[in-house]
């Protein structure tokens, strides 16, 4: 066999033509051969003009495809082309008509011997007389014709017989046996069989390598799972880390002294820095109350100042103003200041609980927990 080189479709076609035209004159030594699937072509071609005599069936032109089919190799595009060419040429020469017909389901027309001497003329004649799709000399149509109505794509082994049967029916050849053989060869190439390795494995599933693969696979899976879980837990822990269990803040419940320390009309501001409350003794809706106002502006959270001269809470940030009872009256604040819970503890002192707030707009200032009557 010649050196293995890639052949283009054109080259294969040319080679096939030359060979079939010139009989066995094609110089196989000079023909470049491609590895793998093209090798089948090479073998077929070689057998076409070398083993012809040895083979009992004298079908020289049909040899390529037939040999391929017999050998069980997948027929490549080149195979089909070569076979088509060979057949056509022979049909022109009027030799091995049967073989040609057997090789090609479509060239049923080739059954009729063509008197034309030149291949081109043959082709034209064939095209003219072919009952099927036009037999032109371009690759696409040859392939399409060669494949008949079969699916052009790769075909699985399971599908192959079915397709073959279809082709058979379509060909409707008098010669059943050769048609069948060739039809199988003609169908689009079957999927490659599984490598021997896999097949071997099927028999002895539990070999050591398989065990190693499984073991290593599980170790990797376990490892990465553990890593992910650890990472996730660490992230959660990290989130928890940002929230301390103990705060260095003043207690939320504290005593501010006896009622008597808060005369009527007075806003006590001395608890603001530490606790953030004003303790006010004022009239609210006709009732004299002592209540604790939260020093957080209801606009954006700044701390307003108590302006004694103007008798109002004034926020320095954006100018919100609140009356002594905490109700907003100017600036952007949308609602009154909030109250904290206040009560008289067991020892008689006023005790403020910052964990509970009362909002006027929700009617919560009516709650007796939100004030102490004087």
């Amino acid at each position, binding site marked *: 066999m010649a050196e293995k080189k890639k052949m283009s479709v054109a080259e294969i076609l040319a080679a096939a033509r030359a060979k079939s035209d010139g009989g066995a004159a094609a110089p196989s030594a000079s023909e470049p051969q491609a590895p793998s699937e093209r090798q089948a072509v090479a073998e077929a071609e070689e057998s076409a003009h070398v083993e012809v005599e040895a083979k009992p069936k004298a079908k020289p032109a049909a040899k390529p495809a037939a040999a391929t089919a017999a050998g069980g190799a997948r027929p490549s595009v080149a195979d089909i082309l070569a076979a088509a060419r060979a057949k056509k040429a022979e049909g022109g020469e009027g030799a091995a008509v049967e073989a040609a017909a057997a090789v090609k389901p479509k060239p049923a027309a080739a059954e009729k011997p063509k008197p034309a001497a030149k291949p081109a003329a043959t082709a034209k004649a064939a095209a003219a007389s072919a009952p099927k799709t036009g037999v032109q000399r371009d690759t696409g149509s040859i392939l399409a014709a060669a494949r008949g109505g079969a699916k052009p794509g790769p075909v699985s082994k399971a599908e192959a017989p079915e397709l073959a049967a279809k082709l058979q029916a379509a060909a409707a050849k008098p010669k059943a046996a050769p048609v069948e053989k060739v039809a199988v060869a003609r169908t689009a190439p079957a999927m490659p069989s599984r490598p021997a390795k896999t097949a071997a494995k099927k028999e002895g599933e539990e070999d050591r390598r398989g065990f190693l693969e499984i073991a290593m696979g599980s170790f990797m899976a376990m490892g990465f799972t553990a890593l992910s879980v650890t990472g996730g837990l660490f992230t959660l822990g990290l*989130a928890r880390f*940002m*929230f*301390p269990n103990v*705060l*260095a*803040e003043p207690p939320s419940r504290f005593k501010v002294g006896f009622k008597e320390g808060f005369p009527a009309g007075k806003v006590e501001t001395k608890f603001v820095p530490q606790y*953030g409350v004003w303790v006010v003794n004022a009239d609210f809706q006709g009732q004299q109350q002592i209540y604790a106002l939260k020093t957080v502006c209801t606009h*954006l*959270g*700044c701390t307003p100042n108590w302006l004694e001269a103007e008798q109002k809470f004034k926020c*320095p*940030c954006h100018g919100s103003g609140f009356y002594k009872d905490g109700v907003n009256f100017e600036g952007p604040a949308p609602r009154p200041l909030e109250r904290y819970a206040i009560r008289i503890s067991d020892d008689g002192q006023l005790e403020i609980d910052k964990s509970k707030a009362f909002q006027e707009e929700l009617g919560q200032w009516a709650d007796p927990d939100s004030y102490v009557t004087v």
Partner: protein
Amino acid sequence: MAIGETIRNSQIWKSIFRHPMPLDRRNRIVVMLTNFFLHLHPVSIKKQGIALSFTWCMGGVTFFLFLVETVTGVLLMFYYRPTLEWAYNDILALRDVTSLGILRELHRWGAHAMVITTWLHMYRVFLTGSYKPPREFNWVIGVILLLLTLLLSFTGYLLPWDQLAIWAITVGSNMARATPILGYEGPGQQLLTIGGIDMITDGSDARFGLLGARFVGEETLNRFYVLHCIAIPLATSLLLAIHFWRVRKDGGISGPL
């Protein structure tokens, strides 16, 4: 230049620079490929890719400002102590006592400028359609970088610890109270109630995690200091590297249409 020749032929020089002078095309390519600082850049770019009228150089200016902030910020850290007792005094000392105290002003101006140039950079990228495929992921990274830039500004704003800083952070962080689900005044806050116990309170919500307390205090100062000096710059550096890398991998600086 015998001296220059001697230096360039010395073992030390050759151990650092593994290529000859970049006088021809091949060596210019080798320089780009073997230099740590240059290898993020493409070996060659289209001339229009660096046209000022097209790029405005806003990405480059932003990166330059990031470097300025890094250098001046590290220098400021030598003087600044993030405690209630010293934070404000150290800021005053930087102005009044320290030589070259203008470094603090440079840091502040650079911060303002960086926010502006980041916006302008995005504006340019938008106008030139450079956010479109295949650069759409780099746009996403750019948006994250914008957020990090704003966070750097926000956290740095608290560090002078003056009234402006405290109340600005108070107001700004109050927005976190309205965080969906994780803010104690936000929508869906009730979803995280387990066995009748509210998991999201003013002591455990997103705002608390940011401030480290229920109000802006010493814990907040410390948290913002760490975020401002360590955490966010690290994240920004990483994303910047990816950003530049992707500029190269996604086809380089986009050209005029």
